[in-house]
């Protein structure tokens, strides 16, 4: 830290000497005045703290170091074992997130470094008439491929915004991504195996393992869906992501796609599909990834402490939208038009309305006190479960501080709220997001 400060001090001296030189040769006004203009370190060069809290993480992303992993461009590190990496903000300018930038979240530390497709099989077992095993070749050749554009978002995305803060992965907003997923409809595999009549749930397991004792959540990661859940008809066992093989860290060789649902169900390196005759009592269904059975999954620390919060397994993603640019790191110029851009999505159907609100001098923490919403332009519709880009041209009227806000409405009429949520797991955050920008004089 001291070294970094020393560096920036030296940088300032360097800038000062250049400024002095310029002033001398071009006959500008006072050297001090010019120095004052140049010495302001841009906000994006500020040294980040090593942690955030007890208040909200004030940044768009989490604050970890940027690191390099196999098949990945530099991403923000949350944890190294199991691997959890967050996608930097600028990648969300587009509707599709590149594979190499797609965020990573594993639950257990023994994750695949290699898979031999000569022996790897996807097994369908349990309460079925026919136990089946499919090779990658079977999946690609025996079934007609289907594709869907779908957002994969971690249940705990934006957990760092919770107040009071809750323990868990301290994600910024970058634990999400959108891809075109291609593979085999899950239903076709289940039909091929013939589910028995008394079957109730279908459980998914990947190749990851943990060092904890058997029968505990620290040993294996298992997720289940109710066989009556209509989402099963939309699920895909995907072998391609954006028309490429999946990166190892995103679930090579195949991954379950559950459109509209949080990523906890999207089993990576899916290898076992198990039909159950009774509800799944394993940790990851019975204890983990549960949300209060209340509107927006909202509750209070007091109610949790009193033990009167009924919970249900997390399911669909509430409507969200983000401002991606401007990111507040650069001063904008008065009267110079710029395009405010972002993305929006919902687990309940297409985003069909996007609005922005641009206000002078309001606090991002307390939210907007007056709300004048202007419609924004929507980008291409890639289907109900995809990111949808939006844009809005803005001419900053005069110098000052502005607060930009974006709000999405989905096909079901759900609209983002200006109130946050709170629950002990740190799930379902979907409040309206803000971006503060500074506008300078044009001359």
């Amino acid at each position, binding site marked *: *830290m001291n070294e970094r400060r020393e560096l920036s001090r030296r940088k300032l001296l360097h800038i000062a000497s250049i400024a002095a030189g310029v002033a001398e040769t071009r006959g500008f006004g006072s050297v001090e005045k010019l120095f004052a203009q140049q010495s302001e370190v841009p906000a994006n060069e500020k040294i980040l*703290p*090593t*942690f*955030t*809290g*007890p208040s909200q*993480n004030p940044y768009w992303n989490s604050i*970890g*170091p940027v*690191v*390099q*992993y*196999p*098949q990945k461009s530099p991403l923000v*590190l*949350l*944890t*190294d*074992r*199991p*691997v959890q990496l967050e996608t930097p903000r600028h990648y969300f300018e587009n509707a599709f997130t590149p594979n190499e930038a797609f965020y990573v979240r594993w639950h*257990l*530390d*023994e*994750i*695949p*470094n*290699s*898979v*031999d*497709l*000569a*022996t*790897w099989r996807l097994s369908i077992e349990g309460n079925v008439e026919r136990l089946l*095993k499919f090779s990658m070749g079977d999946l690609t050749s025996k079934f007609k491929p289907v594709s869907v554009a779908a957002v994969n978002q971690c249940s705990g995305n934006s957990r*760092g915004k919770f107040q009071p*803060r809750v*323990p868990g*992965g*301290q994600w910024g907003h970058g634990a999400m991504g959108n891809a075109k997923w291609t593979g085999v409809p899950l239903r076709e595999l289940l039909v091929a195996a013939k589910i028995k009549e008394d079957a109730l749930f279908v459980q998914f397991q990947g*190749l*990851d*393992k*943990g*060092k*904890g*004792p058997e*029968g*505990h*959540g*620290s*040993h294996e990661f298992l997720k289940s869906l109710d066989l009556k859940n209509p989402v099963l008809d939309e699920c895909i066992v995907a072998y391609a992501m954006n028309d490429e*093989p999946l990166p*190892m*860290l995103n679930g*090579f*060789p195949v991954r379950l796609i559950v459109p509209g649902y949080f990523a906890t169900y999207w089993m990576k390196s899916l290898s076992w599909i198990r039909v159950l005759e009774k509800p799944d009592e394993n*940790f990851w269904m019975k*204890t983990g990834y549960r949300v209060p059975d209340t509107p927006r999954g909202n509750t209070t620390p007091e109610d949790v402490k009193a033990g009167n919060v009924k919970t249900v397994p997390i399911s669909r993603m509430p409507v969200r939208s983000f401002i991606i640019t401007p990111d507040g790191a650069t001063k904008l110029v008065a009267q110079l038009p710029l395009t405010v851009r972002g993305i929006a999505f919902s687990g309940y159907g297409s985003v069909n309305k996007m609005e922005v609100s641009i206000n002078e001098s309001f606090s991002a923490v307390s939210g907007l006190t007056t709300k004048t919403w202007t419609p924004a332009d929507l980008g291409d519709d890639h289907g109900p479960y995809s990111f949808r880009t939006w844009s809005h041209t803005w001419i900053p009227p005069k110098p000052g501080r502005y607060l930009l806000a974006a709000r999405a409405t989905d096909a079901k009429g759900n609209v983002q709220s200006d109130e946050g949520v709170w629950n002990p797991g740190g799930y379902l955050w979907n409040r309206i997001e803000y971006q503060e920008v500074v506008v300078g004089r044009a001359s």
Partner: protein
Amino acid sequence: MKRSTIWFIAILAGLAAAAGSLVYAQFDAGYYSQKNLGAIMQPAAPKDTDGATYAVTAYPLYPPELAPGPGREDVQSYCSTCHSTRYITMQPPLPPETWAAEVNKMVKVMGQPIPDDVQPVIIKYLQTHYALETRKP
């Protein structure tokens, strides 16, 4: 023996062998290393062209610096069986009772066998360095 019977026996033998093989023998997993820290990965052409093995290099480890103080060694040994201690340093400052609850969860729910006399040492360490009043940059 009829040809179909031979085929039948061969298939049965194959199935038995497949069932007997270890479920996880098909892949390498959990390979982490600190030696490629800070390096930009350079593409290297895979060596085998006829095989069906798809592999990546070791996943890099970024061990965090834990605050010095009594209990640090216990935290390092008991809390890194299943996960990196970045799970600790990543957290915001948490109330002392939350740290106690986290350690209890690891023992009772996750099954980590931390001896009874070590649990309070670990809880105390986390409360001393990673709680609301005590966390230092």
